[in-house]
C-alpha cells in the first residue's frame, strides 16, 4: 500500500520563514506533502461526518474497538504478503457487521468489547513478530503514516471516501431517526437492525481510512473528538455535522503544517490540536456556567 519513508526523513525540519505565502509554497513544494494534504482532507471530511453519528449513538468505544481489530487484520495481511489495507478492511468490516448485528444487545458491554479488542491487539503482536522488518510497518499502523502516502493511495482513499459519504447520505434520515429513538423508528417501519449493520460497515471503512492518517491507536482524535466538540456547539444535526467536518479538517491541516516545520510526528500534532480544542471548549463552558450561577 504505502512506500514507507522513514518519518523522520520525510518530515525533515525546515525553518518557517513566517511569511504565510512563502511557507505555503514550501509546504506544497514536496509531492509527499501534497499527497498528505489530499488524503488528509478526504479522511477528515469522512471522519467528521460519521463522528456525529458515533457520538449520537454512543458507539465511540465500538469505533475504538474496530480500529484495534483492524490492526490484527492489517498485520495478518502483511504476514500473508498482502496489502495491509486489505486485512484492515476485511477485519474492520467483519467486526463492524458483527457489532451492528448484535445492536442494542451490545450496549453497555464495554467489558466484552474490551476483551475482544485486547485479544485482537495480541494477535497483531504475533503477526508482527512473524514478519521480518516489522517495526516500521507496525509503527505506521499504530500511529499513522500519512507522510508516506503515494498517489495511488490518494486515489484509493478518495474512492473509499466517496463511497462512505454516498452511503452516509443514503441512510441519513432513517439512521438519524433510529439513533435518536430506535423503538419509534422501528414502529415507523425503519429497518433498525439493517441500519445498525450498515452504519457499522460504513464506520469500518471510515476507520480503515483514518488509520492511514493517525493510526490505530489515535483514531479517537479524528472520528470522535471533532464530533464531540461539535455537538457542544449545536444540537441541529446538519450544523453539528458541518462543525465536526470543519474541526477535523482544521486539526489535520494544521497538524500537517506544523509537523512539516518540526522534527515531531504529524499524529502528535493532530491529536494535540484535537485535545487542546476539546479542553478549551469544556473550560469555556465551565467558566460560562459559573458566571451564570453568580448572576
Amino acid at each position: 500500500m504505502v512506500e514507507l519513508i522513514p518519518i523522520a526523513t520525510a518530515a525533515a525540519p525546515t525553518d518557517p520563514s513566517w511569511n504565510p505565502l512563502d511557507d505555503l509554497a514550501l509546504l506544497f513544494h514536496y509531492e509527499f506533502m501534497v499527497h498528505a494534504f489530499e488524503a488528509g482532507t478526504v479522511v477528515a471530511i469522512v471522519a467528521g461526518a460519521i463522528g456525529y453519528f458515533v457520538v449520537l449513538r454512543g458507539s465511540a468505544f465500538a469505533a475504538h474497538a474496530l480500529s484495534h481489530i483492524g490492526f490484527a487484520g492489517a498485520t495478518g495481511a502483511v504476514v500473508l504478503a498482502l496489502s495491509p489495507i486489505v486485512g484492515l478492511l476485511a477485519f474492520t468490516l467483519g467486526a463492524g457487521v458483527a457489532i451492528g448485528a448484535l445492536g442494542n444487545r451490545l450496549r453497555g458491554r464495554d467489558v466484552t468489547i474490551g476483551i475482544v479488542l485486547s485479544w485482537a491487539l495480541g494477535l497483531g503482536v504475533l503477526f508482527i513478530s512473524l514478519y521480518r522488518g516489522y517495526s516500521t510497518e507496525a509503527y505506521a499502523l499504530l500511529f499513522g503514516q500519512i507522510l508516506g502516502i503515494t498517489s495511488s493511495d490518494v486515489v484509493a482513499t478518495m474512492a473509499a471516501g466517496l463511497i462512505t459519504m454516498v452511503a452516509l447520505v443514503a441512510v441519513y434520515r432513517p439512521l438519524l431517526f433510529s439513533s435518536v429513538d430506535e423503538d419509534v423508528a422501528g414502529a415507523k417501519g425503519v429497518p433498525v437492525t439493517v441500519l445498525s449493520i450498515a452504519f457499522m460497515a460504513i464506520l469500518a471503512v471510515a476507520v480503515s481510512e483514518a488509520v492511514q492518517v493517525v493510526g490505530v491507536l489515535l483514531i479517537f482524535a479524528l472520528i470522535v473528538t471533532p464530533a464531540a466538540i461539535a455537538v457542544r456547539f449545536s444540537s441541529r444535526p446538519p450544523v453539528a455535522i458541518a462543525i465536526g467536518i470543519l474541526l477535523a479538517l482544521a486539526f489535520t491541516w494544521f497538524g500537517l503544517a506544523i509537523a512539516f516545520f518540526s522534527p515531531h510526528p504529524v499524529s502528535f500534532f493532530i491529536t494535540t490540536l484535537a485535545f487542546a480544542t476539546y479542553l478549551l471548549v469544556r473550560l469555556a463552558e465551565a467558566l460560562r456556567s459559573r458566571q451564570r450561577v453568580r448572576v
Partner: protein
Amino acid sequence: MSVNDPANAIVARGLAAGYGSHAIWSDANFSIPGGSFTAVLGPNGAGKSTLIRLILGLLHPIAGTLDVLGEAPRRGNPRIGYVPQGSAFDPELSIRGRDFVGLGVDGHRWGVRLSGRAQIAAATDAAIRAVSAEAYANRQLGRLSGGEQQRLLLAQALVGQPSLLLMDEPLSHLDVRNQGAIVQLISEVARKRNLTVMLIAHDVNPLLSHIDHVLYIAQGKLAMGKPADIITSESLSEIYSSPVEVLRDRLGRLFVVGLEEEVSHPHG
C-alpha cells in the same frame, strides 16, 4: 356496537400472543370503538406492551385475528402514532426536540431531506403547538424535563395526523402534577382530532375521569369494559377466578390487590 362494525378501530378475535410457542395471554376477544380512550391495565409482565407490539405489527399473533383500522397489522402504518415505553433520553443526546418531531414526518425515508421542507416545518410547528411545547422545542432534547420530553414524544406521534395513538406507560416517569397535565392534554387532543387512544398505565387513577374503557390484562386473560364495571372486586374476582380486592381510599383513588402475583416476564 357489533364486533364487525367498521367504526371499530381495533378488533381482536380469539387472539393469542406470545414468544415462540409460549403464550403470554390467549383467547382475547374485544373491539375498541373509533374515537374512544382505552386504558390498558394489569400487573407487570402480564403482556400489555406485547398487545401494543401486535397492533404495531412488530410481533405476529400466535393464534386468532387482529384487525387494526380496517386492515391487518403492518409495520410502519402511517395512521398509527406511537409513544414507546422508556426512560428519559440520554442528557447528552444532541438533537433538538423540533428535529425529533420532524423525523416523525419523513424519518423513515431514505436519503436526506431535499424537498418539502416548508410542509414538514409547518406540520412540525402544528404538532409542537398542539402539545404546547413551543417554549422548549428548540432546546436539546436530552436536557429537557421528563414532562417536556413526554410532550415532544406526543408531538412526534401526532405529527403524521394518525387516527390511532398507542402510548406505552407515558405517565410512569412523571410526578403527579405532570401526570394530570399530560392526561388532560392527550384527552383534549384526542377529542379534537377524533383520535382513538390506547394507553398503557400502571395506575388508573390519573386516567379515571378521561377514559371510556379499561382493558385489563392479567393471568393470561384479557377483559374489557367500562371502568366502573371492570374495576370492582366482584368483576375482577370473577374474571380471574381468584379473590381480587378493589380498595378505594379517602380521596377516591382505586387500588387493585390480588393480581400482582404474576410470573414475571422479561418482555413486559
